[in-house]
């Protein structure tokens, strides 16, 4: 077993060797700009890109024409929200989203609020799920769009997209979902779920980085003004030369994800539950953040009371895990997602995210459990808070010298 053991599958995933193999000819043998329709190199590239597009569409039950390639889910989210606002925003200036969304969704909304849009940020329940009644209550005549992520990147919680889609469709409001974490991992049918626009990532499903997609519904038609204008590639929705090898890899990754989804989900769910239950059985005061079952099979987010997160990360350096989301883990701020669940700052500070995936082995799972148990116990021995709790002190009654 190689250490550190990679347990950060929500940040990014290793490229599947089969994806590498599929990309290789397009890296090493076949040059060509898929937009040059006038020579053979261009044709071959175009065909490969269209196969990839079809593979991606199939995962979500969409038509290939509804798939727009982008540089990644961040661009897709920016495009979905800012682009829809550009189109529909003249008379409808209200957007509903959720406080636990990915930063790029929140940031796109913030950008729009500076331009006169009114944004409702819905809170979530303690388990990370959205109360649908709160969504219904927030809808207004001028609501343009609802943007709710499918699966959360930090706590893995899966929102009831089908129910949200139905509410939005009934209200005549466009529905965007950030499916960066769920695409290829959970069954998605954009028609059944009434999704109008969906953001998709490649590097979260064992495909290459630097590429993603936006699903844009054709019937009833969803309109998105491009944020990258120019040569008019991607049906005029997103200009710029497409990176053929990356798209081929993305397409292959989508194909594999769909084929192996059920088996992988089962395997990872067992692993996930083993990790959670073993740790919780062996040591007290360990809390699972996010709903216990309505969550990604590959996501575990635990708070270890009386142990500080960063020192725990250092202690378990043989495990590549994260505290907070990858984008913010270098900062000292506690995760906004965990705070939205009602966690106090000190609990938010003691949490780590373990992401398991396709290449995680049973041996690695056992090693992770042992490593965590041993180090949490060691750090608790070193923790003045743990000592006080053992002595029966109620920490909430202590007057701390804030600094």
């Amino acid at each position, binding site marked *: 077993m190689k250490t550190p053991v990679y347990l950060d599958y929500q940040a990014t995933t290793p490229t599947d060797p089969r994806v590498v193999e599929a990309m290789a000819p397009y890296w090493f043998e076949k040059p060509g700009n898929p937009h040059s329709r006038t020579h053979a190199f261009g044709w071959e590239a175009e065909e490969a890109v269209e196969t990839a597009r079809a593979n991606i569409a199939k995962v979500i039950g969409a038509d290939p024409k509804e798939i727009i390639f982008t540089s990644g889910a961040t661009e897709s989210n920016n495009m979905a929200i800012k682009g829809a606002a550009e189109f529909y925003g003249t008379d409808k200036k209200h957007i509903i989203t959720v406080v636990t969304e990915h930063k790029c969704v929140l940031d796109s909304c913030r950008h729009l609020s500076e331009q006169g849009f009114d944004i409702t940020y819905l809170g979530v329940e303690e388990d990370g799920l959205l109360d649908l009644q709160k969504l219904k209550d927030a809808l207004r005549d001028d609501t343009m769009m609802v943007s709710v992520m499918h699966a959360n990147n930090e706590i893995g919680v899966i929102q009831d997209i089908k129910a949200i889609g139905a509410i939005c469709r009934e209200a005549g409001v466009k529905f965007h979902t950030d499916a960066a974490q769920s695409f290829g991992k959970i069954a998605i049918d954009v028609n059944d779920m009434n999704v109008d626009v969906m953001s998709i990532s490649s590097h979260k499903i064992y495909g290459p980085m630097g590429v993603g997609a936006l699903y844009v519904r054709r019937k009833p038609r969803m309109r998105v003004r491009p944020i990258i204008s120019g040569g008019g590639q991607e049906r005029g929705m997103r200009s710029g030369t497409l990176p053929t090898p990356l798209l081929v890899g993305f397409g292959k990754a989508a194909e594999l994800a769909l084929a192996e989804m059920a088996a992988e989900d089962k395997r990872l769910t067992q692993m996930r539950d083993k990790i959670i239950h073993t740790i919780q059985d062996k040591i007290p005061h360990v809390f699972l953040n996010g709903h216990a079952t309505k969550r990604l099979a590959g996501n575990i987010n635990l708070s270890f009371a009386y142990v500080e997160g960063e020192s725990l990360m250092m202690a378990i350096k043989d495990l590549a895990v994260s505290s907070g989301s990858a984008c913010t883990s270098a900062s000292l701020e506690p995760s906004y997602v965990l705070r939205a669940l009602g966690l*106090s700052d000190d609990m938010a500070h003691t949490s780590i995210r373990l992401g398991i995936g396709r290449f995680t082995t049973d041996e690695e799972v056992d090693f992770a459990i042992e490593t965590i148990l041993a180090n949490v116990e060691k750090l608790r021995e070193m923790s003045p808070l743990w000592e006080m709790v053992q002595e029966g002190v109620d920490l909430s009654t202590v007057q701390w010298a*804030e*600094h």
Partner: protein
Amino acid sequence: MAYSDKVMDHYSNPRNVGSLNKADSHVGTGMVGAPACGDVMKLQIQVSDTGVIEDAKFKTFGCGSAIASSSLATEMLKGKTLDQATEIKNSDIAEELALPPVKIHCSVLAEDAIKAAIDDYKSKQGA
């Protein structure tokens, strides 16, 4: 976060972890920080009748730098008189551990913990 070898050494092999009897009149206890800030440091000194620190122990809830800072602080304290101990500055700790700028507050906390422990001891002595 890239830590210096010294931080890693103190973090992996912390010196003087543990507790002294806080009821003992020769023991001074300093508890600083707050869980919400991500750092709580408990530092204890045991002082001889001649005013020399004979033993020092710590328990810290905090990042690697906070643990290393308190571990180093206990090492520095041992054998010092109370007056000498008062002279220990956070910069001494930060420099010794080569703390990055974002972690300087850990050394500040350690200095505060030393002062709090000394104050506690002195108040017990009624001085």
